[in-house]
Every structure is written in C-alpha cells, then in structure tokens.
C-alpha cells in the first residue's frame, strides 16, 4: 500500500533523529516495564496465596504469639480440614543483609498444607526424622550453594543463641508464583530452645488453616475468632490473600509513588516523541500542502503523521519490552534473596507497555496532525522549513 510505504520512507528521511527517538522510547519503556514489574512483585504474596487457606494470628498484632493449645480447638471447627502452624525465627545467617524467611514449622503437616512446595517423599521423611533438620527453597539452595547434608549456622536474634541446622530437603516451587526463598525447620526444636532461655513455652506465631470449601472462609474465620473471644490472646482470622494484602497496604504510599513515577515516565515519552513529530511536521508543511493540492483528503495526512508516530513508538516499544526481560533478571539477581521472591515480567506488564506505546503515539501526533490539517494550502506552500 502507498500509505505504508510513504510512512516507512518518511522515518528514514532523518535517520539520526528517528534512531534517537526510537532509542529514547526504548529506554523509557524499559523503565516503565521495570516499575510495573516491581509493582507486580510487590503483590506476589497475594498472587501466591491459596484461596482455601486461612491465617489465624493474635489480634493485637503479628508479633504476639498464640498458645499451642488453640490448635485442637481450631481443628474441631466444622469445615476445617487441616491446621498447621509456624513461628517467625529470623536470626542472622552469614550477615544481617541475608534476608529470607526462616521459620520454625510443624514438620508433620506443613508440606501437606502447602502443596505448592514440592519435596520428594524421601527428603520429607528425612526432614521429619531429625530434630535439627531443615528444608530450604531451591532459590536459596542455589544462591548460597547449599546441598543436602550441609550445615547452616544461624545466630538467633529474637531467640538468642547459636543454632545449627542440617539441610535434609530442598523444595522446588510448583509454578512461577511460588516463593522458593524460605527456610523451614522443626518448631519443636525452637520450642525447646525457647524453654531453655526462659521464654514462654508452647507458643506459636500463627496458624495456617486449610478449609474444605473456600466459600465458607468468612463463616469459618468468624467461628475460629469466636472461640477465643475475651481470652488473653484473642485471634484474628482472615484469608491468606487478605493477610498478604494487609502487609502490602502498609506500604501503599510507596506503591502510589511508583505508580505516579510510571505515569510521569509516559509523560516523558510523549514529550520526546511529540518533539520529533513537531519538528517533522514543521519541515513538511509544504509537502502537506502539495498533497492537499493533489486532492488527498485530510484523513490521509492524519494517517501519514499518526502512522509515523505509531511506527516509531512501536519500534521503540518492542526494543524496550525485549530489554525488560534480561534487566528484570539482573535486578532479581542483584538484590538480596527474599526481597523479591518473585520478580517476573508478567503478561499484564507487557500489555501495559503496549498500551503506553499506543497512548504515546496518539498524544504526540495530535498537534502536528491538527496543524497540518488546519493549515490552508496557500499558507503551507508559502512556509519555509
């Protein structure tokens, strides 16, 4: 088609300018893509949550524990199929910058409640047998070069003391949403230690409840909380997704800022491309007048100018999106494990980038299109570039 050929030839008239514009768009789309990926990573905890799991914690806040005795009471609530529990241990592994979740868990039931953590039957059996055995996620195993049988030395901070764990299992993530950066060991081991250092024994951090029917979550949550109403340790039960979401909403000011910056980025792309298109149109006012004289309708000019803007922004956009993948990988490898357990460029992010490219091309060609169409033929012919 003539129009397409014309658009294509036009972007080669100022090779340097077109190349620079494409490069500018590529870089800014890259920044945009990275920010969207970061926001998606923030929500990874919500994405990874199963809809048949509930979390029960102390209603005052998550730093207060609950008695182990609650376990059987919760298990008796109708609709509850399984109850497991965990304690946040934290500790210092190597140094204070190695941040990934380290928890004391019920070795017997944890992996049944979390089917997305894949572990072989042999490894699981080995893990259950030994008092100070531990299981780590495959990402952690890879990053710290840990193998089965290796010892992890961890200094306790919340639970002071020196700890040695033997790795008896390495769990793999079921899919890309699963967090493979955690470490689990026996809650019993932690409990014994807690007694030794004079802490209150038989306390757990939170319960993880598996329900038969996710639609009953609200009813079951209320039933659980009602059990312990007016007790010394009241509970708050919510779906795993709501629990994960409450952590995100605590830093929503940061998320809002990132959102604002990503909008500013789109503004900058528009400015760069609009600048190029304004220059291009200004130089070609005479040509547009000639085209009009020859009888081409105004719509043709619109397609011509908009087509050029679209072609440039699409080329820049594609390069930018392609660059986002390796860079996102680089970011994930550069930051400490556990900061962003999942840092994948999602389909949604790519879609948003594509949308941004479209918006940019429309906004940046608006003025030149208007100018070219409203210019009279005589004025256009008279104009000097």
């Amino acid at each position, binding site marked *: 088609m003539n129009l397409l050929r014309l658009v294509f030839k036009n972007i080669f008239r100022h090779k340097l300018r077109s190349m*620079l514009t494409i490069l500018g768009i590529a870089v800014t789309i890259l920044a945009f893509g990275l920010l969207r990926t970061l926001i998606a990573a923030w929500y990874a905890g919500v994405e990874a949550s199963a809809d048949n799991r509930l979390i029960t914690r102390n209603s005052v806040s998550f*730093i207060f524990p609950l008695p182990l005795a609650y376990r059987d009471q919760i298990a008796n609530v109708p609709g509850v199929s399984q109850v497991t529990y965990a304690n946040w241990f934290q500790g210092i592994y190597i140094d204070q910058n190695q941040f990934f979740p380290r928890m004391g868990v019920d070795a017997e039931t944890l992996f049944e409640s979390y089917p997305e953590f894949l572990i072989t039957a042999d490894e699981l059996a080995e893990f259950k047998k030994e008092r100070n055995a531990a299981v780590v996620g495959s990402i952690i195993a890879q990053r710290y070069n840990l193998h089965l049988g290796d010892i992890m030395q961890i200094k*306790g901070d919340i639970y002071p003391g020196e700890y040695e764990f033997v790795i008896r299992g390495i769990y793999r993530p079921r899919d890309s949403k699963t967090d493979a950066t955690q470490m689990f060991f026996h809650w019993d081991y932690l409990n014994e230690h807690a007694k030794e250092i004079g802490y209150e024994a038989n306390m757990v951090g939170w319960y993880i409840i598996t329900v038969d029917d996710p639609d009953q979550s609200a009813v079951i949550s209320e039933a659980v909380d009602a059990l312990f109403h007016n007790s010394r340790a009241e509970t708050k039960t919510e779906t795993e997704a709501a629990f994960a979401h409450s952590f995100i909403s605590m830093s929503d000011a940061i998320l809002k800022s990132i959102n604002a910056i990503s909008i500013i980025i789109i503004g900058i792309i528009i400015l760069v491309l609009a600048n190029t298109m304004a220059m291009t149109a200004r130089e070609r006012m005479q040509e547009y007048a000639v085209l009009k004289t020859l009888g081409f309708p105004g719509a043709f000019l619109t397609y011509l100018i908009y087509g050029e803007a679209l072609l440039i922004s699409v080329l820049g956009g594609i390069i930018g999106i392609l660059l986002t993948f390796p860079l996102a990988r680089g970011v994930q490898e550069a930051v400490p494990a556990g900061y962003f357990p999942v840092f994948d460029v999602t389909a949604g992010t790519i879609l948003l980038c594509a949308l941004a490219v479209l918006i940019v091309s429309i906004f940046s060609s608006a003025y030149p299109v208007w100018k070219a169409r409203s210019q009279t033929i005589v004025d256009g012919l008279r104009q000097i570039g």
Partner: protein
Amino acid sequence: MKNIPFTYSIRNLFARRITFVLTLSGIALVVFVFCAVLMLAHGLQKTMVDTGSKNNVLLFRKGSDSELSSGVNRELVNVIATLPQIAEDNAGHPMLSSEVVVIINLNRKGIGDMGNVSARGVTPETAFELRKDMKIVEGRRFKPGSREIIIGKAIRQRFQNTDIGQTIKFGGDEWTIVGIHEAKGSAFESEVWGDVDQMMQAFNRQGAYSSVTVRLNSPADTASLNQNLESDNRLLTIKAESEPDYYRRQSRFLVIFIRVLGLSITFIFSIGAVIGAMITMYAAVANRTREIGILRALGFRRRSVLTAFLVESIILSLIGGGIGILMASFLQFLSFSTINFGTFSDITFGYILSSQTVLATFIFAVFMGIVGGFLPAVRASRQDILGALRAG
C-alpha cells in the same frame, strides 16, 4: 577573535517555542522525580536521626537488631542504674527509662485497612525528662499506674478512633487516650506511649523490658560505658548504642530502598530526556547550518561555535532543572507515611529540600544538558565553511 556572545545562545533557544517547551518539560519532569527521591530519603533520615538525642544511650540485648527483638531482664535494670556514666536529675535519681516496645494494629482512616503502630511503655517519671522534645499539645500526660495512653500526632491523623477520650483495646484491656503529643516531627510522633509496668503486665512480658534508655553525663562517655558493660559479668549480654545511631540504623533499609530504587529508575529515564535534548539540539544545528557557516566566515573559531551550542543546551537544562526543583519544593507541604522495614511499624515523615539536594539536582540537570548537547555541538563546530554557506 572574541567568543560568540552569550545572548546568541539564549535567543536561539526561544526561536522555536514548541520544541523548546517540550524539551524543557521533559527535563523538568526528570529533575522533579530526581529531586523528590532525594527529598524523601533525606526527610526519612532526618526524622529518624532527630528522634535520638546525642546524650541518650539505648541499652539492649546483644545480637538483637532492634528493640522489638531485644529483652533486658528487670533485675539487670538495677545493675544498669548504678553505672557511673549515667546522669542524675535534681533529686539525685539516675535518669533512666526502662521501656517496652510492641506493635499493635489500628485501623487506618479512609480505607479502614489495618496498620502496624509502635506502642512504647515508658517509665513515667523520667521518660519525658529524657526526651525534651516530647510535648503534649492536647489533653494531658498519662497517669502512672493507669491504663491511659497518649498518642502521637501522626497517628492521630492517620488512624481511626484516636481522639482524646476514645479507647483502644489491646493486651486484653481497654486503654483510654488522654493526650496527643508532638515531638518536633521525630519518629515518636508515630508512636503510642503508656506506662511501662502497665504494658508489661498487659502483654505478659515476664519481666523482660525491650530496652533501657539512659542519659549520659556527656556523649563522650559511651566508650567507657561499653567498657563497664564488658567488665561486668551480669551485663555481658547488654550492648549500648547512642540514640541517633540506633534510629539511623532502624531507617537504613528504607533509606537505601528509596535511594536505590528512585535513583536507578531516574537514571534510566533521564536517558530519555537526554535523548530529547539531543534531538532538539541536532535540529537546532541542522536548521542553522548557514548561520554557522557565516559565524565561521566571520572568523569565530570552531571552539567558539562548540561552546555556543553547548551553552545553549546547558541553559536549557538549567531552566528545566529550576522548574523541576520549583515543582518539587511544593512537596514540602506533604507528608509521607509508610511501614518502616526496620521497625515493622508505621512512620510518617516529610519531604525535605536541603541545599545539598538543590546542588545535587542542578549538577544532575547540567550533566543532562552537557551529555545531550555535546555531540550536536561537535557536529556544529565541524561544519566546513563553504559547505555550510552553500546549504539550505
């Protein structure tokens, strides 16, 4: 031959209004974000560091990173009180406040989501002496031995049911709000304060405080205080850190996060703005090919031409930088609240524009101008006279 007049560069900038405005806006937006990031990081750091007073030292358990994971046994406080470095008040009592810090959940205004708030139990008699900046702006202080609390200004603004006379339920009991406090914008404004013994009892802490804060006779005594801690067997598990150092450490993750994230993103998209400036300057050079020829024919040297174009680009970036900083300066009217990764609780801080930030931002802007203008300026200066005069 003299240099090309400065006004030549300035006038040329305004010759093409649309291009000028578009390029300027691009630079201004990048500068705005760059400046905002620096202001935010600085605001957080200042809030946290200002929370501490140089004469105050925090004593907590070795190996724990924060008050939240620390524990200091009740018996040890009596030992600590005898340390000679601790200042005494007029009545001859050691200036020492044993404190407990926990996190409680409150519902936020508006969306109603739950937020983490630091609740601090303090020794009523001394805590206010130790923190001179703490001022009650409404109501009164909590009464020792009662289930009363005072609430920081920042919390009152952000969380539901935090007016005087209302109650908050935690630790199996209702606590009545009797006062609102301010603390010169420091982190204490994001805390709830009450009587330490009441809170210990309510939270069933079994005799372990989170930390002990003491006033030293002089900040220089920290070293000898640490020696005393090392030499006393009972205090071997305790470590001392000055308050400003402690609070700076509590904010370091968030500060690093804001800086690294903000600046790396700004860096990437500043490339976009630089390319915008480059396009503009290349166009300026191309449109003025004949002019450049004339300038060279008049005897201006290549270097003068190069400088003139580079100056043009730098002026562009300086104006853009000025606009960006001006826009960013309005952020000072806003405050920013988020969870502090170090303390797991809500902290409110402001955007602070310091002279260093202004300087850094202008340097950044000029850098963008130089990078964007250099290649076009080189092209301008390389034109041969005859070819340029013959062009367009």
